């Protein structure tokens, strides 16, 4: 595969063009990752401002009118509302897991049923998030079931 980069004038819009023989899963995956990188989120931690990639977010949660972005081992505060984050991640691999949580399906390790009739979703960083039964179809849709 040939990779070429062309510098353009600042008046021209930046663009990525992928030339391929067919739109296969690998190409779709590349497009998805590029789209995710475009969406950088502003997050706050210890009075500092950070720009996070959606790819790094494990899950988004609202607690007592505050919103938090959970990454592998750090938690950031976000000014986004739940519905705003949901809109932002609509075309990507995030799903609404409960009234206050949106999970990145690419960060899921495995799931287990709980005695309460809900599902325990274990993430790759060891964290566990509870998902109501009513949101499980959404998870299944995201992973292609």
């Amino acid at each position, binding site marked *: 595969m040939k990779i070429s980069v062309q510098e353009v004038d600042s008046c021209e819009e930046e663009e990525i063009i992928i030339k391929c023989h067919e739109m296969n899963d690998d190409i779709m995956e590349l497009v998805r990752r590029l789209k995710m990188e475009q969406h950088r989120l502003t997050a706050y931690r210890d009075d500092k401002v950070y720009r996070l990639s959606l790819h790094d977010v494990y899950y988004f949660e609202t607690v007592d009118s505050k919103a938090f972005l959970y990454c592998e081992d750090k938690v950031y505060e976000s000014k986004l509302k739940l519905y705003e984050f949901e809109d932002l991640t609509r075309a990507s691999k995030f799903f609404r897991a409960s009234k206050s949580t949106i999970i990145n399906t690419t960060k899921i390790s495995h799931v287990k049923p709980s*005695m*309460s009739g809900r599902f325990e979703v274990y993430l790759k960083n060891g964290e566990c998030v509870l998902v109501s039964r009513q949101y499980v179809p959404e998870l*299944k849709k995201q992973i292609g079931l």
Partner: protein
Amino acid sequence: MDFKELKREMLLGFFYIYTGSIFGTYVFCSLFYPDLTFSLSYFPWMALFSLAGDATLLVFYSKKVLTEKQFLFRTVIHFILLEIVLMTFAGLLQLYESTLEAVAFFFIVLLVYFMVKLLSFKSGSKEAEVINQRIQEINKKGEDY
């Protein structure tokens, strides 16, 4: 459990309780009153019976997501309330007369309650297995998908 989810659970719960109660009555009467016959009015009374039992699900209503411990505690309260409601109704309808019959009725309700929880957990386990298989397939392709 929020109101939307509670409404769904109560509707499903009503049908589970109604069919469970019909089956429980069949087992109970087969053991103690094998020659007993029922009039048609038994079925609407049983529906009212089930509705009263179903109303006990309101104990699970919560604006916030419940932790597993909180859910377990509310499950115990729910079971106690359910037994009180069902035994009161059964006593009024003279479905049992002696202490032995009352104890048998108590254990039949306990058995039905346990079976409903077990079936729900088993159904969740099967669903989790399918989801985990798919997640494993996806993770084998690479870190993300």
